[in-house]
């Protein structure tokens, strides 16, 4: 079980790092997907090794896939909107409001 959890933890950390360091908004979206998929690996692993019967983990993973897709749709729509107004999608633009 531990190798799978380690894989999930590494993926989650890569996603976390990506969200915090990427300048490009699409890059941030991709990193977020990575984090969600790390969670999926965790759920499926736990379901295989911990739960004796039942498919709760797998079902939750499918729900997460669906929700990640829905979030990506809204996220990309907002990114598109920003591209129209700013002619660019780098996070450097987002400084209209400060302290």
């Amino acid at each position, binding site marked *: 079980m531990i190798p799978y959890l380690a894989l999930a933890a590494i993926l989650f950390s890569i996603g976390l790092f990506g969200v915090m360091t990427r300048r490009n908004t699409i890059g941030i979206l991709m990193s*977020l997907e990575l984090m*969600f998929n790390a969670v999926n690996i965790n759920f499926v692993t736990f379901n295989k090794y*911990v739960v004796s019967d039942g498919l709760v983990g797998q079902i*939750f993973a499918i729900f997460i896939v669906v929700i990640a897709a*829905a979030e990506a749709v*809204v996220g990309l729509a907002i990114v598109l*909107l*920003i591209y129209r107004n700013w002619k660019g999608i780098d996070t450097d633009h987002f400084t*209209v409001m400060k302290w």
Partner: protein
Amino acid sequence: MIDFSSVADNFNVIYPELALLIGAFAVLLLGTVKRFAGLCTSVAGLTALIALWLAVDQFGTQQSGFFGMVTCDAFGSAFKIIFIAIAIVTMLIAHRFMIVKQIARPEFYALVLISTFGMIVMANTTDMIVMFLGLEIMSVPLYVLAGFARRSLQSNEAGIKYFVMGAFASAFLLMGIAFVFGASATTDLRRIVADFSYIIYHSGLYMYVGIALILVGFGFKIGMVPFHAWVPDVYQGAPTPVTAFFSAGPKAAGFAVLLRLFMFGFEGVAELSSIFWVLAVLTMTAGNVLALLQDNIKRMLAYSSIAHAGYILIAFAVGGEDALSAAIFYSIAYAIFNLGAFAVVVLLETRSGCRSDFSELAGLSKASPYLCAVLALFVFALTGFPPTIGFFGKFYLFSTAVKAGFIWLAVIGVLNSFVSVYYYLRVLKVSYFDRVEQPALSVSYTPAITLVLLITAAGTLGFGLFPQKLLEFAQSAVFAFL
């Protein structure tokens, strides 16, 4: 095999939710036809009223359905009423503002209704899968709402910031749920509570990691320090009625789930009390101190909402039934006077060229004395002066803390309230005493917003003088699980 013969009976548990959802889809359908687009507002308002009536009808009953996935207990049905009322008030506030700012689109009402549906789902379950689904149903429309003013750069920025932060928080929350699932082999809080000591003994590490990650995830959602950085930007950038909705609805929903998770599900973890002690102190202090520096009213109210979240976090540190009903009471009270304050800000912003800076308040007492008096009432409630509901809410919270022996926590809370006096009263100082060269623009009322002001003002003052009814409501809304 699962027996599906009794599924039809389950639907009477979720009548208010169904009404909201049908209304939302009706609004979306009507919105596509130009000729009917004008009807959308009334349809949305009507369905919300029907949902409110159904929710009030349901209050006090204990129901469960959908194989234990939906648990409509007193706590959940109380929050149903709160969420729907907040949605109605938001729609009333928004109507005129959206037209003036030229962003009036039927989707707004559909999104508010769907988001409210999500809040109800997340408050009415003990299963973490359903909780998460409800959270996402609530959040995804909110990302759109934050960026609703498509041509405004500020609104775009609010949308993308809220989206990234929200999705980021969801990932943490999910990781937390995954670890709790790994430790307990179930996602149902009732089963976790039943086997709690066994779970901690056998896989305590996973459980602790999971609880910590869940706390981080919800910390983002309710704007808890140190996860509060997105709050001011999103509150300032989003269209003002949307900000009003943010500060009342999703916040109350976040607290509803947090209360259920940490005062019922993970109550057995003794260390949580001291963690919440630190978080409450950090949150209210940071919120109040940073609010002192603001020049924009919306931004000031954003920091003040962080501070108020800090006051509610006191209840988590204290624990127990009294603290729970104090937290519910304070959530309701905060929703009432905060929505009122935002209604005033919306009204001021519908004047041409106003961006809700403090300087725009100057001369308001001459131009519109009644509005200024109402604003004063809400400001007193935010500060916590008697005889408003804000005073009673704080009094109830702090007195439960003192009774349970958390004297320092109550002292820090009271000191924080003193700090907050400075920036809240600055609103009144500017509007009553600052000299102006040219008279302030007068505001034009609409029936909808006048109604909101009357209701919230009556609630702030009425429940402040006679808190008994609301107190009974909050006390009857503690968990009673099936």
